């Protein structure tokens, strides 16, 4: 509300309206920015699929029992600490500029699309690992005791008893992280990937009008809303179930 009032009353509001909210430029930039937005969607889909699998793997490593698995557990801890600690923008630069700089055969000859996606995967896997881990730890120890008492191995217990319950519980927070990932696909434009933000930037440079940024923003919001509502619905459904079970 306040922002709206300020935007209308501010001395420069006339100018901002022309430069950011021009109907003419909105229509004109919608096409090219959409073109870029398709790249965002591609990055998002690839990254989310890889993150789902990779993060689960790391979370499982972190839960391995016994002293023999200590190096693997330590590796998982270091990974999550490091990649949750580094700002995504730095990871994008380090991966996007560093890997090509190594001049290796396969590693250094990928497209900026690939490097950008790898950077997103590295950072978001660290977050999602923690989400999975919270889910795994929320499964009561008595469930593990019951499974192990049947003679199931650690892995069988994880596979059939712990993980199915854990994953179900973490779907809402996991989708929340994915909303973050969707937005952060715009950061790979820093490497020169011509996605929607970059298209809007190019448009601005050509026509001296920033409406393309607003177009890109609208696309992102339109993509986020269904996912956010779906997350809400899942949470409500879980609450209903829990109440039904308690009653």
């Amino acid at each position, binding site marked *: 509300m306040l922002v709206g009032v300020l935007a209308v009353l501010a001395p420069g509001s006339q100018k901002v309206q022309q430069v950011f909210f021009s109907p003419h430029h909105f229509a004109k930039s919608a096409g090219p920015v959409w073109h870029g937005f398709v790249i965002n969607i591609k990055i998002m889909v690839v990254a989310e699929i890889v993150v789902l699998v990779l993060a689960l793997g790391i979370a499982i490593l972190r839960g391995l029992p016994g002293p023999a698995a200590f190096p693997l557990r330590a590796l998982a801890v270091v990974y999550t600490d490091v990649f949750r600690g580094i700002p995504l923008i730095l990871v994008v630069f380090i991966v996007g500029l560093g890997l090509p700089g190594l001049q290796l055969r396969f590693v250094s000859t990928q497209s900026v699309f690939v490097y950008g996606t790898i950077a997103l995967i590295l950072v978001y896997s660290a977050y999602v690992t923690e989400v999975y881990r919270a889910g795994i730890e929320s499964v009561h120890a008595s469930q593990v005791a*019951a499974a192990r008492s049947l003679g*199931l191995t650690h892995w069988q217990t994880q596979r059939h008893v712990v993980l199915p319950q854990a994953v179900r519980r973490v779907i809402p927070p996991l989708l929340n992280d994915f909303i973050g990932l969707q937005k952060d696909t715009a950061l790979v434009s820093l490497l020169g990937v011509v996605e929607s933000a970059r298209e809007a930037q190019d448009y601005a440079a050509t026509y001296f009008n920033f409406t393309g940024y607003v177009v890109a923003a609208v696309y992102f919001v339109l993509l986020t809303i269904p996912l956010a509502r779906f997350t809400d619905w899942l949470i409500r459904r879980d609450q209903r179930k829990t109440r039904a079970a308690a009653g």
Partner: protein
Amino acid sequence: MSDALALEGVRKSYGANEVLGGIDLAVAPHEVVCLIGASGSGKSTLLKCVNLIEPVTSGRIVVDGEEITARGVDVNRIRRKIGIVFQAFNLFPHMTVIDNITLGPRKALGVGRAEANRAAEELLERFGLAEKRLEYPDRLSGGQQQRAAIVRALAMKPKLMLLDEVTSALDPELVGGVLEVIRELAESGMTMVIATHEMGFARDIANRVCFLDAGLILEEGPPARIFESPENPRTQQFLQRILEAGRL
């Protein structure tokens, strides 16, 4: 005949806190032994040690002629021979009743799904749960859940069953059904060690009753003798309190 279960000098400590202070107990095949005693006397811990859920601090446990506390023993193989039923049922909430029951046979014993289902249905029929086979645990009453948990343990065809206060979490009107199941098991010759607060039931079903206090078996014997003429003052005191509470 060799013992189904033998404990020799079993001790268990959590840090400085000694929960089991040297337990000696031998259970013959087909024998039903009831463990009685106040909460915290070590009954549950004893059962958890036999199932290797809790490692013993010292002492030996022998099941069916095999020392299970030996170094390097395959705990999964041992546990498949021993069924345990918990106070809180611990059914798997994301699986139907029949999947709860067949998980162990299918994954730990490698039985095919069809055969595991057939065996499970037979057991469910026998324990009056046939029509609940496709329900999820949260749709069952506490008594039904506990019976399903007993069937889950039985599906592994164990040599020995451990029951850990299996009626303590149940509403009073549901206790009877579960005790009936245990009675049937005893009659079918199952070797059982039962930790219980149901003194009337223990007197009824046990071949032998052991009174635990502070991690030691203070007194043991046939139920008639333990309940009617206990010798140890602690046993007398415990039973007196139970009597006053109207639980005997």
